[in-house]
């Protein structure tokens, strides 16, 4: 997809307006997954807005966001960074062969206490 279309697609499916961001960094200040990510919530907002989306798509950070919505809840400008991260992730996994998690990987990941909820959520988050 062309850069411009990619950005528009991400904005459309996320419903986020990154221009509302005032670059305070509260999202990244509150993110519990910060240490696990190479691109942080505020960078997602900034980079989507500036159209620099491919590095985000290639980044493992997409699979480290917990969708805990702390950034959404605490953002003073109601930018909703988690929705933007979700949209970038979807633009990746909606491509043929780009599922991050495949069903045949699952058996090796399970233990006897693992709740179904974990499998269902992870599959929904990481595969199409």
């Amino acid at each position, binding site marked *: 997809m062309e850069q411009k279309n990619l950005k528009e697609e991400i904005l459309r499916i996320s419903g986020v307006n990154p221009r509302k961001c005032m*670059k305070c*960094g*509260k*999202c990244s*200040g509150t993110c519990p997954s*910060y240490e696990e990510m190479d691109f942080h919530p505020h960078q997602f907002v900034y980079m989507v807005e500036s159209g620099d989306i491919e590095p985000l798509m290639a980044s493992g950070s997409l699979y480290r966001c917990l969708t805990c919505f*702390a950034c959404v809840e605490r953002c003073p*400008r*109601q930018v909703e960074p988690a929705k933007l991260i979700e949209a970038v992730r979807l633009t990746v996994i909606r491509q043929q062969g780009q599922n991050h998690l495949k069903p045949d990987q699952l058996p090796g990941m399970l233990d006897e206490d693992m709740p179904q909820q974990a499998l269902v959520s992870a599959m929904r988050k990481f595969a199409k």
Partner: protein
Amino acid sequence: MQRIGVFVCWCGSNIAATVDVKAVAEALGKEPGVVYFEDYQYMCSEEGQNKIKNAIRDYKLTGAVICSCSPRMHENTFRKAAAAAGINSFMVEIANIREQCSWIHKDKVSATEKAIILGRAAIAKVHLNAPLTAGESPVVKRALVIGGGIAGIQTALDIADAGFEVDIVEKKPTIGGKMSQIDKTFPTLDCAACILTPKMVDVAQNEKIRIFSYSEVDAVKGFVGNFKVSIRRKARFVDEVKCTGCGLCTEKCPQKKVPNEFNLGLDQRRAIYIPFAQAVPKVATIDADYCTMLKTGKCGVCSKVCAAGAIDYKQKDTFVEEEYGAIVVATGFNPIELKKYDEFAYSQSPDVITSLEFERITNAAGPTGGTLLRPSDGTHPKKIVFVQCVGSREDGGGCGKTYCSKICCMYTAKHAMLTREKYPDTEVYVFYIDVRTPGKSFDEFYRRAVEEYGVHYVKGMVGKVSPENGKLMVRASDLIEGKQLNIDADLVVLAAAIEPDQSARPLATMLTASMDTNDFFTEAHPKLRPVESPTAGIFLSGCCQGPKDIPETVAQASACAAKVIGLLAKDKLTCNACVAHSSEMLCNGCSTCEKVCPYGAISYEEKEFRMPDRTTRVRRVASVNPAVCQGCGACTVACPSGAMDLHGFSNRQIMAEVDAICK
């Protein structure tokens, strides 16, 4: 038949870029009664005015229509020009083709069409215009200042200095306001009390100024020059005249567990109290919510110890009725409540405080005697985190404010600097989004905090504060280094947004003064009339109009005083000529108009009328006092029989305008 001239202004390109001014002039020239038309680049210029004057003389015009900017801008200019050329100034009508046309449209064809329609409506009105003469009303040479903070104090002192009487109404037991709670003032670091209390004393000693402390405005009637205000003097259960302010009662009162609002609840006071040592008036007040005597009838200690016999448990609220020529609103601000910001743990830890609370715990008259100590355990904090913009600059859908509170960057720099100066072993972090320091010597002040005092300014925001084992774990972003920080702080200080005082909204309703969506009072013009409300006779001083620091507040307070003095210096005010009048033959005496009139301009009288059969009959009819009527038109729409009408805006004139638009 009127002889009407039409004058179409280009307003440079403001109008001409979107409206074909020549086409408008020509089209309007074909309207019935129009004997002259012209367009010109700047109708408001001297040259433009001369064109109007000359046309009036040369073409014997009886009326004029100026298609230009809003009548708020130049109606007066054009009316004066018309009067100078010998016709009554009320024979001039403005068609607003700028604010209501060119500025809000893009398409030239349709904008031109609309401009013609607006002009046509004005022409239709002029056909029904009649010369009007304005009456005069006297000015009560006394001003009311509502709010006794630094804004109200400065305005009152300046008005009194010009020789006029001023009353200050202050809802708290003392004047002084927020400034009396502040420790030092930026950027010069003078002690706030040292510069405020002399002014408070000046107020107390000034013969022209009366202070109604512990009082509130209860009702406002009247209009510019002639306000009638009812002031509720709340029962303080102490005779203000007898009380000497010795303070013995405040030491002996057995009820010691009252949260001390002057110290923002950080310590406790007695049920009878004087807020602080330099209070004006220095009079005790009994807090009825906590006084054992008032609640149970058993105590009376204060009364026993008062040598002056000033205690009066039976005191009731009283009302003072007074007349004023001008009213100044100086109701001030408050920090917002922070209970919606508990990611910062404000309600979960006593060591998370607001900046105003920080002022109190660094103030010599505060709960810690000026030593910086943690509210939880009274220890010295070794690591302090300041968080900027808490509740400011938010998106409109959130619980905060959309505006910048303006004062926080500077007072935080001050707090950080003073902490480092007094306690050099304390580490100080300031989390900022932007550092906003416009103002004389302001940026230099902030730079000193960074460069000379070693305050750590971190570009980023705190995301979570977690109280843990006596520490405050602060998780925050450092956007420049690209790190998430975890700081084990001892004290967290939140720069809470400021908002107008709660009393402002009901007061605005009483004064019929307009407010914005944030409850700040609106100015008559944001640039050119910044200290006046659009409601004549109402003036604005201090933070009730928008966030501002002390220097700006004092400047505005004096500007406000200058405007008030200008009004009070007049003996008479020219009234509005466009006043209501009632047709006695149509009036059925129902009193509806009297009830809706906000100015009390309508009264009823019994009048004898001759009937067609030559008998006489007494009927009750409305009569309008033209000196009091402000021409708001409420009565004309309320009148069920159509007896009420407004000079200059008669029902016929308005219908003619509507017809012209719909033609």
